[in-house]
């Protein structure tokens, strides 16, 4: 596997052993992210403790990038405040879109494995799917 491969060990680990994947029936709010272009379909559920994201879970189907990113997302935002989580989504969006963004612009260190995906514009929507669903769940204007 070449060095520029997007299939870094950390990503594969999240794909094979997704964190916080499971039943969303107890969630306070569930939002769906779907990409008919490739059939990715993810539900993100959040339990709030006042302004804090106490528990963030997901379920659904998608490619390895989509599922790993969802898994990483749940890890990254759990325990964060709504505002911080919202800002993290914005930072993710920026990391994957802004001209001249670099590996150093990653919103959190545990997302480093996604850096290899950034060069692949076709996968951007796979990466962002769970994050955008989360953003909707936060219901911040």
């Amino acid at each position, binding site marked *: *596997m*070449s060095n*520029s*491969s*997007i*299939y870094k060990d950390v990503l*594969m680990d999240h794909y094979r052993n997704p964190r916080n994947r499971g039943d969303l029936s107890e969630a306070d709010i569930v939002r769906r992210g779907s990409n*008919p*272009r*490739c*059939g*990715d379909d993810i539900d993100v559920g959040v339990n709030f403790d006042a302004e804090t994201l106490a528990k963030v879970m997901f379920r659904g189907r*998608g*490619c*390895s*990038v989509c599922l790993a990113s969802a898994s990483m997302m749940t890890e990254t935002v759990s325990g964060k405040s709504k505002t911080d989580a919202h800002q993290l989504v914005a930072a993710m969006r920026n990391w994957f879109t802004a001209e001249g963004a670099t590996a150093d612009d990653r919103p959190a260190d545990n997302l480093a494995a996604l850096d290899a995906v950034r060069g*692949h514009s076709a*996968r951007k929507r*796979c990466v962002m799917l769970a994050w955008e669903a989360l953003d909707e769940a936060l219901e911040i204007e």
Partner: protein
Amino acid sequence: MKIKPFDVFDSAPVLADVPLLAAAGESLHYLDNAATTQKPNAVIDAISDCYRQHNAPVHRGLYDLAENASQLYETARRTLAKFIGAASDQLIFTRSATESINMVAQGWLRPRLNKGDQIWLTRMEHHANYLPWQALCRDNGARLRIIELNQDGTLDLENCTGLYDASTKLIALTQVSNVLGVINPLKEICAKAAGQGIAVMIDAAQSVGHMPVDVTELDCDFLVFSAHKMFGPNGIGALYGKAERLNQMEPLLLGGGMVDHVSQCDSIWMPYPTKFEAGSQNLADALGFAAAVNWIRQHDMHAMHAHVTELTQYALDSLAKLNNVEIYGPRDAEQRAGIVSFNLTDVHPHDVGQIAGERGVAIRAGHHCCQPLMQQLGIAATARASFAPYNNRNDVDALIESLHAAQALMG
């Protein structure tokens, strides 16, 4: 695993003609030909030569350079028309197969489609041959009907009751499915439709240049295709129409060159093909398009087609030997063009495509602009390998190796 090519066709000279592939060598196995083909030198040179020697407005100037440009443009039209067995003036240059279809939908069918009429498509149509008709049916209160598929991906022509009814105004279907590779029995459909006065529009984006296509033999009403899928340039396509249909058809684009007389309230169009070519003509790409036809002729389309068929059979057989693979469409390459869609169980097609790509194997993963077909198959996407005359068995072998790798990584 290296096997000596088993057929008589030698793909090496074809490959040598295509600079992108010749330069990439073994680092690239280009198997995304159904999306777009690579370009031979003859096509690239025709375009640069145009800009270096012939560039001038077409049908507008009186000086030699302009007169010559006009003649080159019309010669290109003749080359294209002859290639599909059409009269020269019935070949309209468009921007793409997509535009050609939209022209027929807006300019010919829209004014004559009434509430209760039917448009028939097939389950395997590309969005380009689905969305324009869907929108038209919604606007005009007509019904969109679908010819469904048999288990092997061929058209189920037994169970499409009403196909040739008087209320059917158009049957629009592809000659070759860009997902299943299936070749449809057009002559039968055109003949039956003609008997009922029903117009047939053929999406030949995947067939022209790859197999013999003759509009007179097919006796279709309209036929569309794109240059870039047959070794020609981006940005140009074609529309063929029967004379009567072209006379009935209104232009999609209004502008310079297509009008004879303009008055305050109304205007008089030129006759076809001029009526349908508003704006400055795309001379360079018309010359590149004709160069592609000449290149195909020079390399013998029949021999190239036979080579692609053998390669497709080899790919089908090799894929079938994998574990946990699903192949879509008929298993016999004679029934299809050089397009093979498949899925590996439990590996998302995007991962298949990405892993193959990381190993230099360029295949496509997605719905291939065929969501209605995907929905019917109950899947979101497939991986797809598609072949051209410059491919050979090494490319198939590399594909199979990359699929082993995908299964190893994702399994």
